[in-house]
């Protein structure tokens, strides 16, 4: 690739998440959108909405008039679901639009996807991106986070997303099958647990999944909390205040035993000489890392086994996309040319 070509390249990093998708571009643009894609159900809906396709919160808002897709529902594209594949393609196109690339520039895209999706849907995802970019690569989300943080050796990345919790041990190479694990007890699972607990305790109130998701994002915590969690929900049409502190704690802690067990198990299969280093370097990323008290809770929980040190990253929303952007920009020219 000649220097001119390199100069003419615009690099884009995308974090294609179950819940949110984020784009980070070399021109400084950083945007995010909720991972919903909706097509108007009929010509009436299309005329009313005035758009061929809607994304994110706008799609959610008009969901009754749309064929709505949340393409990576459980961290993977459902097998044979063309609608989800089409949704990924639309979403990628939308994110690239949001990056606002200067006309005439060639585009190089690196996309981080849930680890399980990389295993089972890599060709579908790559096809979806290839419509938009001259050069492209697809990697797992925890890997792109690790790359952005520069923690490529003797580190475990714990990426708590909506559809899956992805575990990935970095040991100086691209992670392989045995380095990675995924469990489905993630953000969506917590939401379902919270809704169930609240509906059981307050059958008179109308809680919805979207409502409890917002409660969790605002007040979610594990361990002890000094302040009470109070929210409002309608009872016979009248908004009423509820104290949901205990339900919130129980729901947020529900995936913790599985997380601890997987961390211990994954480290146990690592080279014994380096297990200690990995135990001291466990980084929590993804939206789930914003649960208050999470790093302390997990550090305490692993004390009964071999003590581990967990640290939450500062900017979980952008970390994946920023890492992917760095990866795209760092890729040597001779490699880039063939991707």
């Amino acid at each position, binding site marked *: 690739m000649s220097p001119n070509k390199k100069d003419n390249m615009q690099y884009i990093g995308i974090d294609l998440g179950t819940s949110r998708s984020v784009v980070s571009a070399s021109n400084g643009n950083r945007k995010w959108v909720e991972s919903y894609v909706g*097509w*108007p*159900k*009929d*010509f009436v*809906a*299309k005329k009313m909405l005035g758009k*061929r*396709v809607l994304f994110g919160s706008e799609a959610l808002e008009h969901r009754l008039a749309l*064929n709505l*897709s949340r393409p990576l529902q459980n961290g993977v594209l459902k097998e044979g679901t*063309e*609608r989800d594949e*089409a949704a990924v*393609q*639309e979403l990628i196109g939308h994110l690239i639009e949001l990056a606002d690339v200067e006309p005439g520039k060639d585009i190089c895209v690196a996309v981080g996807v849930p680890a399980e999706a990389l295993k089972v849907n*890599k*060709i579908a995802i*790559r*096809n979806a991106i*290839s*419509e938009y970019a001259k050069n*492209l*690569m*697809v*990697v797992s989300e925890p890997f792109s986070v690790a*790359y952005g943080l*520069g923690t*490529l*050796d003797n580190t475990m990345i714990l990426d708590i997303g909506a559809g899956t919790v992805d575990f990935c*041990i970095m*040991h*100086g*190479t*691209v992670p*392989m*099958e*045995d*380095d990675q694990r995924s469990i489905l007890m993630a953000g969506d699972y917590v939401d379902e647990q919270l809704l169930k607990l609240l509906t059981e305790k307050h059958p008179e109130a109308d809680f919805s999944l979207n409502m409890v998701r917002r409660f969790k994002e605002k007040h979610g915590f594990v361990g002890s909390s000094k302040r009470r969690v109070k929210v409002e929900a309608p009872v016979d049409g009248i908004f009423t205040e509820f104290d949901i502190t205990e339900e919130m704690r129980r729901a947020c802690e529900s995936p913790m035993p599985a997380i601890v067990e997987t961390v211990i198990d994954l480290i146990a*299969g*690592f*080279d014994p*000489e*380096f297990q200690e280093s990995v135990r001291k370097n466990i980084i929590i990323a993804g939206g789930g890392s914003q649960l208050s008290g999470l790093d302390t809770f997990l550090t305490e929980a692993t004390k009964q086994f071999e003590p581990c040190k967990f640290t939450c990253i500062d900017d979980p929303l952008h970390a994946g996309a920023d890492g992917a952007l760095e*990866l795209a920009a*760092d*890729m*040597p020219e*001779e*490699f880039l040319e*063939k*991707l």
Partner: protein
Amino acid sequence: MSRHSEIKKTVLRGVYEDNAGIPRSTHGKRQSKFAADSQEPVHSSRYPGKAVLVAVLGLVALLGFNLRLVTVDVAGPAAMQVVEEQPLPSYRVQLPVPVSPVGALIPGNDQLVSPEPIQSLDDATITSGRYDTMLTRLGMPMADLFNLQVQTIVIDPGHGGIDPGATGHLGLKEKDVVLDIAKRLRDKLAVTGKYRVLLTREGDRKVFLKERVAFAKENRADLFISTHVNSLPPGAGSLNYVETYYFGPHTDQRSLELAEKENRDSDYAMGDFREVIARIGDTLKTEESKQLANSIHKHLYNNMKRRNRGLIDAGAKTGPFMVLLGVEVPSVLIEVSCISNKAEEARLSTPEYRDRIADYLKTGIVDYLEERAHRRTIEGGIIQNVAKQER
């Protein structure tokens, strides 16, 4: 270079190899069928339009000075019969092959040909009238010509019976280790339901190399996987490494010595191979074997390394192994571990470790087969398109 930079370089190469290994789509931009407005233009062409293809092929032909080209005849036997009376234009696909050696190392790199130099354009051009030449010179497997699926995989556990292979310090024998791994690998491949998987030996018995080759032929093997365990002389006993071979000239003294050791019962001397090695040249069998070797080796080494940082990557390379020469389908010989390393021998003695090795081998084989199937779907589409266009 700092350690961090070195790691970064390794990681970037890994990302590149992972992504280069995924075949590119030839699909056009797809209009969602879920959109309400069906009046919008639908770009549903599965393959590039005729005009584009003609232009691309023309351009490729014009720029031939920087590309190596190979021509694949798609007219088939029917055209061959006509050729003698009245020469017909043959339908050809010209596939550019990157000059860079890096591309040559990457499995699934959209190449139907060996990345090794072809002497001249004429050498690589085979028309319908030279159909049989294509079979013999390119060594193209019949399965590829008629787009048949891989159905039978033969796994060959090395040694057996009175031939124990290498023996570790604790007394563990190569013949037992590789038989156990081969059986596990067979079971793992069989549960996919896609393949018939056979072993050249089921128990602890001596099988000559010729018998192994004959077994693969009799059972119409589509892939041949020979499993072995490395052993190093006492001075190098602490080393531990994995390596994967496909047939070709030896790349170093050690691979020659290893081949001599493994060829011991072949009834052939190394000198007899020379002519055959030279003649086999760059065939599609070699290219497919190379891609299979790369895929298996990548999964085996990268996964095993996480349990043993000292593991050395001896790579996927050529070696003059008799058992690989005799088999006419993609074939590899894998030294899955190193029994002379005491810690490795201890690990090999546990069923869990052997099961993991079988898992890595299975992933490498399945990855190769899936990539190959995808590659051929794309190539098939291009060939059909060109044929239609020529008509």
